[in-house]
């Protein structure tokens, strides 16, 4: 039997709170984070609601004592990763520690300025210099700040990126390569992504309604989430041994379209099925699914159909916490992994806000009120452009 990989700590910053405590309070109180754009300057300001982190770059910089040329993605990442480490209570320097981060936009908020200059005059900038703003640099800044040097890497597989960074952490621990891994992801809101998603016509001009028959699209959000994953040996050394483990995971490709899911969610189905197999669980063992649930027509029908086919007759409670945080892209897998861990720890199923009308193709509906219930196994789904589909399972460790 493979050794267990425990969740020793979590950290998060999102539109519904600047730390774990604030996020949990918002989830319990049903306080959503989307509103009219405040920080982002865009022509769509009055038309497209977004879920922004309340702290400005200046506030984040002064909190972290970091210089203000650093990209917002790196700042959000550092805040959440630091919280995860302090939440775990582990002295990471005592162990072989890695940092695995994911992002889809990288330091785009800073890069946009460079592009403008570059396109006006190619002499004005060497494209290779932009490397410093790109995805890898965001990870390096946080790793440096945390003092993690043993292993650092960046995953970039769109909206499933940070789910992938979490299971990669588990692999490296199981292989005996590392003892402790801080894994997750970060993405900040930029005009680049807002305009891009707008051209795909999948943004909702109202607050999103995931898994609703009348859903109109997604709201973009921003944030970062990290988990501290540890080996059995590290877990044993802790004052209080962690009670939650990452028990299953799987990544599969939908092989259908660059951005759209196949109608019956083949990739989603393969990812969920593979994760169950890895965890040695049956569909009926899953007590709650934190959905990918973006609120787009295409995602929700594909994900819903895959769940319908896989869980036939045993539909667990499901909800999309993107109804609180918006879609935080490269950070979403990790943010929702943090929520899944909190769900088990607190014995809570979080509501799917603003749900009104049952999807006619599905035999189940999302949970609409906060539920108190003991949870043993929670599944978290993350599906990305490029057909990249991932599913994670967190389990309460018994005995």
């Amino acid at each position, binding site marked *: 039997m493979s050794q267990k990989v425990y969740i020793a700590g979590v950290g998060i910053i999102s539109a519904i709170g600047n730390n774990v405590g604030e996020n949990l309070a918002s989830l319990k109180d049903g306080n959503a984070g989307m509103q009219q754009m405040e920080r982002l300057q865009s022509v769509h300001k009055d038309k497209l609601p977004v879920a922004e982190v309340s702290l400005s770059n200046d506030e984040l910089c002064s909190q972290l004592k970091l210089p203000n040329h650093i990209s917002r993605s790196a700042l959000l990442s550092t805040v959440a990763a630091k919280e995860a480490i302090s939440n775990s209570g582990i002295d990471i320097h005592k162990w072989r520690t890695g940092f695995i981060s994911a992002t889809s936009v990288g330091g785009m908020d800073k890069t946009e300025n460079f592009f403008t200059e570059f396109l006006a005059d190619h002499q004005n900038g060497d494209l290779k210099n932009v490397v410093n703003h790109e995805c890898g640099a965001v990870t390096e800044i946080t790793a440096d700040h945390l003092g993690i040097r043993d292993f650092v890497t960046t995953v970039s597989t769109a909206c499933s990126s940070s789910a992938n960074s979490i299971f990669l952490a588990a692999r490296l621990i199981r292989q005996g390569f590392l003892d402790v891994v801080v894994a997750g992801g970060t993405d900040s809101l930029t005009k680049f992504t807002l305009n891009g998603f707008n051209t795909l016509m999948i943004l909702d001009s109202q607050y999103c309604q995931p898994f609703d028959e009348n859903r109109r699209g997604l709201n973009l959000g921003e944030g970062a989430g990290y988990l501290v994953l540890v080996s059995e040996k590290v877990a044993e050394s802790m004052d209080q041994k962690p009670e939650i483990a990452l028990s299953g995971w799987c990544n599969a490709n*939908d092989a259908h379209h660059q951005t759209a899911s196949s109608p019956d969610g083949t990739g989603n189905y393969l990812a969920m099925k593979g994760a169950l197999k890895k965890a040695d669980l049956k569909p009926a063992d899953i007590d709650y699914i934190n959905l990918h649930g973006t609120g787009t027509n295409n995602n929700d029908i594909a994900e819903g159909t895959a769940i319908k086919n896989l869980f036939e007759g045993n539909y667990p409670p499901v909800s999309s916490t993107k109804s609180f945080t918006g879609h935080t892209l490269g950070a979403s897998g990790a943010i929702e992994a943090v929520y899944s861990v909190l769900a088990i720890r607190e014995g809570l199923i979080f509501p799917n806000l603003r749900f009104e009308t049952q999807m006619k193709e599905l035999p189940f509906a999302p949970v609409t009120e906060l539920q108190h219930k003991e949870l043993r196994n929670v599944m978290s789904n993350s599906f990305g452009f490029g057909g990249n589909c991932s599913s994670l399972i967190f389990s309460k460790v018994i005995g």
Partner: protein
Amino acid sequence: MSSEGQLNITKSVIIRNNSIYVDGNIIYEYFKNDNFLNDSYESLDNNYPKFYKMDVLGKLGMLATHLLLKDSDIENHLPSDVGIVLSNSNSSLDADIRYFDSVKSFPSPALFVYTLPNIVTGEISIRYKLKGENAFFISQQFDADWLHFYISHLFQNNKINACIGGWIESIDSDHDVCLFLTERKERKNGINFTPENLNNIYGLGVDVSNIKH
């Protein structure tokens, strides 16, 4: 890997300096400078019209994978038994800039969809109907040890039978692609799947081009 048996690199493709090498041998050279990607596609592949709609990474991925899988009977594997593990240092920078430029007149959805590095893994999956694990890493340079570790793990733990791996990068029409096919089965001209051999494969194109230019 001893318990699983030796893995083999059964083919490699390098695209660099407007030249294409298969297993270290140059198979295509281009002396003009304007349309290397479309022209090489038209002479080597020419069976996938969607090629023209892709960004540079997508086109490079299509070309290299076509050459990599040409005689590989990859379709005999189950779709979920083939993995894809790619990497580069600049993510989707080239596509990012092209999309950003389009925003001035009208933001183009067709350009935006390529502003993620893993779209190329998606395009390869779509064309060859592959449904196994996909990964895309951002690293400063070609990291043979990491690719070797990750791909070996997929063979051991996910029981895949073949994996397309490597490096795929392009900035300002400066392409640097090194894809290799790793398989359980042995083939003629195959070599052991080791970090040293991966480094040799990646370095080979550099040596050859250094001599040539």
